């Protein structure tokens, strides 16, 4: 038999388990209440019967059957009389309020019994529940003392009914609560499962609803969404990368092919010297190879997911090295170059890739800053503890709306289309940052000053303790 979905959910099963435990606890509690109320009433009646029996037995021992009879006569007038029966040694009834003893086969040992007495209520004969004790007296007679327990019974019935009611309420409330909770939980899980299914089906845009309850389901949904965001961005990046590679390689290859074709035609027609064309073709080839190299490096970084061959080094030292490489170029271009390097910032990274990233950033700054401008290289520790190497220039900058795009892979700005490889340069920096769990950030430079500006500040941020190192917390692991 297939149960409805709600009954197969983990929360519902847990609910049932808790309900069982809860019901057991409630039963124990209700049983205690029963014993303490209904049970106590019965015991009290028994004690009263026993006391009456002691009193009458004492009277008998003091003065014999007559004393007992005397007592019975006195008691017959009381409000709630006991039921009495005095039986002679020969088994014949001597006196009492009932005709015969309800105790069958009296052997002489004290015997308790539950029985019914006939009564008239509003003219109708009814049977009332009663309870009694029969004991043998010293002279061979036996005495039966009973009590009408109809009121007690009624009380017990009331208590039991109340207890059943309470029990049913407990089970009902527990069940209803459980169903509500499990519906709520399984709805959340169903939402998440739905997103997973959608993504598995290829819909990367699917997102889990965050209900704003700030519970673990919201956390899970937010985490899942963030993961999907990154995945989608990355996929888009790859798709875009394909287009960009095609663009970056196809245009120069087309140029190259055309040049060779023209040269071939010229040679065939016996016109002119192909040397110039061949030389150009070689240069074009070098350009293609250069682009290819960068694309390959980016692909490698992305495929590795982490920086290959990381070593620990002083970021400022590396920056100083790269600065030394570029300082003469700045001077040549009529740019003021300065650096501000905080020493002792050790990072764990791939030295070659970080050097190349810094070189690319500096390269761009020098390329886009007009003569008379300035380029500034800084290495500092952020308040977050991360290491930051940044280059600020006084070039035309990048409009704020485009900055995020520039940092993405293979994006070129329209106005920089003529500067070869510029987009790729920053793409590599972005890939390097990503592989090191760092970031590439673009901000406005120092602002507009006369002809210059507003400038651009490009920062490569490397985590103070790279993820790989932070996982290495001294606990030995099997690898």
């Amino acid at each position, binding site marked *: 038999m297939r149960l409805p979905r709600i009954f197969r959910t983990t929360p519902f099963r847990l609910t049932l388990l808790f309900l069982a435990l809860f019901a057991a606890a409630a039963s124990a509690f209700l049983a205690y209440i029963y014993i303490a109320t209904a049970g106590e009433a019965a015991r009290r009646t028994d004690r009263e019967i026993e006391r009456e029996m002691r009193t009458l037995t004492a009277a008998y021992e003091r003065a014999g059957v007559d004393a007992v009879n005397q007592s019975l006569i006195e008691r017959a007038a009381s409000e709630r009389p006991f039921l009495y029966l005095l039986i002679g040694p020969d088994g014949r009834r001597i006196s009492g309020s009932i005709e015969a003893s309800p105790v069958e086969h009296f052997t002489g040992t004290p015997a308790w019994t539950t029985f019914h007495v006939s009564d008239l209520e509003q003219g109708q004969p009814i049977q009332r529940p009663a309870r009694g004790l029969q004991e043998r007296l010293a002279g061979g007679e036996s005495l039966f003392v009973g009590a009408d327990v109809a009121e007690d019974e009624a009380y017990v019935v009331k208590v039991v009914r109340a207890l059943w009611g309470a029990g049913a309420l407990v089970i009902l409330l527990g069940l209803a609560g459980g169903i509500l909770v499990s519906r709520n939980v399984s709805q959340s899980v169903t939402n998440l499962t739905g997103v997973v299914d959608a993504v598995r089906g290829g819909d990367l845009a699917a997102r889990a609803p965050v209900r704003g309850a700030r519970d673990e389901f919201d956390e899970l949904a937010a985490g899942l969404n963030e993961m999907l965001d990154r995945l989608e961005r990355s996929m888009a990046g790859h798709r875009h990368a394909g287009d960009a590679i095609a663009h970056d390689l196809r245009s120069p290859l087309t140029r190259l092919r055309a040049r060779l074709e023209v040269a071939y035609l010229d040679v065939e027609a016996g016109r002119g010297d192909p040397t110039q064309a061949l030389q150009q073709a*070689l240069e074009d080839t*070098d350009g293609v190879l250069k682009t290819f190299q960068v694309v390959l490096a980016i692909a490698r970084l992305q495929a590795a997911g982490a920086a*290959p061959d990381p070593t620990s080094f002083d970021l400022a030292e590396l920056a100083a090295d790269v600065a030394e*490489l570029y300082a*003469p170029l700045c001077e040549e271009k009529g740019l003021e170059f300065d650096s501000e390097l905080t020493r002792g910032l050790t990072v764990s990274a791939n030295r*070659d890739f970080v050097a*190349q990233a810094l070189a690319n950033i500096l*390269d761009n700054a020098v390329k886009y800053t007009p003569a008379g401008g300035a380029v500034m290289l800084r290495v500092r520790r952020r308040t977050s503890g991360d290491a930051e190497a940044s280059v600020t220039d006084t070039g035309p900058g990048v409009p704020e709306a485009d900055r995020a795009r520039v940092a993405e892979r293979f994006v070129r700005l329209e106005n920089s289309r003529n500067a070869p490889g510029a987009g790729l340069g920053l793409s590599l920096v972005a890939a390097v940052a990503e592989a090191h769990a760092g970031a590439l950030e673009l901000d406005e430079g120092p602002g507009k000053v006369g002809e210059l500006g507003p400038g651009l500040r490009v920062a490569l941020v490397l985590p103070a303790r790279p993820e790989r190192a932070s996982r290495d917390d001294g606990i030995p692991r099997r690898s």
Partner: protein
Amino acid sequence: MRILIVEDDLEAAEAMERGLAEAGFDCVRAADGAEGLEAARGGGFNVLIVDRMLPRMNGVTLVETLRRQGDATPVLFLSALGEVSDRVAGLQAGGDDYLVKPYAFAELIARVEALTRRRETGSVQTLLRVGDLEMDLIAREVRRSSKEIDLQPREFQLLEFLMRHAGQSVTRTMLLEKVWDYHFDPQTNVIDVHVSRLRSKIDKGFDKPMLQTVRGAGYRLEA
């Protein structure tokens, strides 16, 4: 100068041979690792050009075997693998230089020339001399025609490399790798600026310019 080319790509090997022959080198070709090892054992080569991935025996094993047998002929590795770790593995196996495919002829020839030169200067020199240019490696001083030239540390290193390879073409990539220890290609030719600064220091005021630009290749320091 005899060169052994161990390369399984026949067309590439032929082109290489032509290029090297043009530069005055005498070439012998081997098409796989075992053949290459056999030829190298025959001796008499000034430089071995070895592709890293070869049929029958890969280039690294070939060079390791040669080195174990005491053969110290300079080796230039050629490889399509350009990762730092690949380069390091090649050099650790006993390679002297590492060139990533594809390469320009000029680059190949410059590197082969550099390797042949390395052999000739076996002893440790404290003084380098090229024409009237003198470099004292211990005092860290440079003079041309007795006139002292003040150089920055990096300029000194750059000039040292050029002097050690005087008369040979050295490429920009070689300078970047050997003087700066960078193994990537900067987008702008930053090396040109450094060389032209050095040139202005050693050639300014002298009739004969020593630091020459070689078209399509790089630079050459001439006596």
